[in-house]
């Protein structure tokens, strides 16, 4: 049984490491932060590449929460406002769209269970042209940055 579980985990890991493709759109590196017990919200981040024409991410679907929306942050001075994106996220022809901390994310509201570190859950992304693309979201630690560096580290001081 234990061996079987290990094999299943390895299989899931292998599947998720492979980018999901369809209609010239590739989705990779989907991840989320672990959420606390009783947490009602979570966010997922990912990278979208277009090897063909321009497309648009218009929706996301998942079974982990009551609502799944596309969100962004609007920065006004030091104030951050989280807002639903109207009209989707553009993927330029031959280019990329990044959903990353501090910017766009897939927002999960009304979580049915917390995101546990080290687990994965399926996410379906809906594109205007490429249609639906399935991916797996890897849950990392609560303070993970997904390989991103924070900005204010290299300041000069007199």
């Amino acid at each position, binding site marked *: 049984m234990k061996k079987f579980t290990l094999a299943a985990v390895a299989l899931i890991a292998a599947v998720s490491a492979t980018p999901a493709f369809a209609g010239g759109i590739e989705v990779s590196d989907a991840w989320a932060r*672990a959420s*606390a017990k009783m947490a009602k*919200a979570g966010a997922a981040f990912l990278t979208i590449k277009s090897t063909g024409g321009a497309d648009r991410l218009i929706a996301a679907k998942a079974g982990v929460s009551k609502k799944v929306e596309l969100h962004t942050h609007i920065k*006004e001075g*030091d*104030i951050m406002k989280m807002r639903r994106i109207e009209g989707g996220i553009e993927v330029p022809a031959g280019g990329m769209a990044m959903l990353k901390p501090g910017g766009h*994310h897939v927002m999960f509201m009304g979580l049915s269970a917390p995101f546990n570190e080290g687990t994965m859950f399926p996410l379906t992304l809906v594109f205007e042209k490429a249609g639906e693309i399935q991916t797996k979201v890897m849950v990392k630690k609560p*303070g993970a*940055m997904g390989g991103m560096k924070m900005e204010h580290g290299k300041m000069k001081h007199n």
Partner: protein
Amino acid sequence: MSSDAGNHNRQKQWGVGLLVLAFVSFGLYNYYQAVFCDETIVGIPELGAEIGPFHLSDHQGHSVTHHSYGEKYLLVSFGYTFCPDICPTQLASFSDAMDLLGDTAGQVQPLLITLDPDRDNEEVLSHFVSAFHPKLIGLTGAEREIAKVASRLNVFYAKAGDESDPESYSVDHSTLGYLVDPHGKLLTVFPYGSTPEFVSERIKQNIRELESKT
């Protein structure tokens, strides 16, 4: 001739004025540069602003005031547990900063004051803060008390979206972090995105400077 002398005087006054302006701008520029790099920031509180008095409860249900943390410096963030990105990013940075403080860590108490007391009761807060750092204390309480602390430190916050649905609204809010001295006075602020190294160095520097004065 007299009009020439007048011109000359006026030129002199202009010269002195410009010099003063240059000095003041340079000073301000240095302050903002030191605190914020080259970002434009609104809502900066005055240094020396007082965080207290307040009456709140911590995530274990104890009632606390501005006197509860004794001789400690406070590293304060404001946020809410429904926040999936901005607040975790800042808390992760402050948690790593606590670990980088070494011997100084014992002098610093990290606090998260919720801006969403309707959803963030003690139990919700306790699960949230424990995900970040064992020393992190979450504070909640009456909306009125939170509003008092927020206004003293110039923290802006406002609910956005469908307020009637607890599983949907978000809270727009200032994203600075605040370092407060053991007398409850603001020492410095940390912009959103500050690295743990930057935060821990500035904390050590502020404590060193303050202690060398006394």
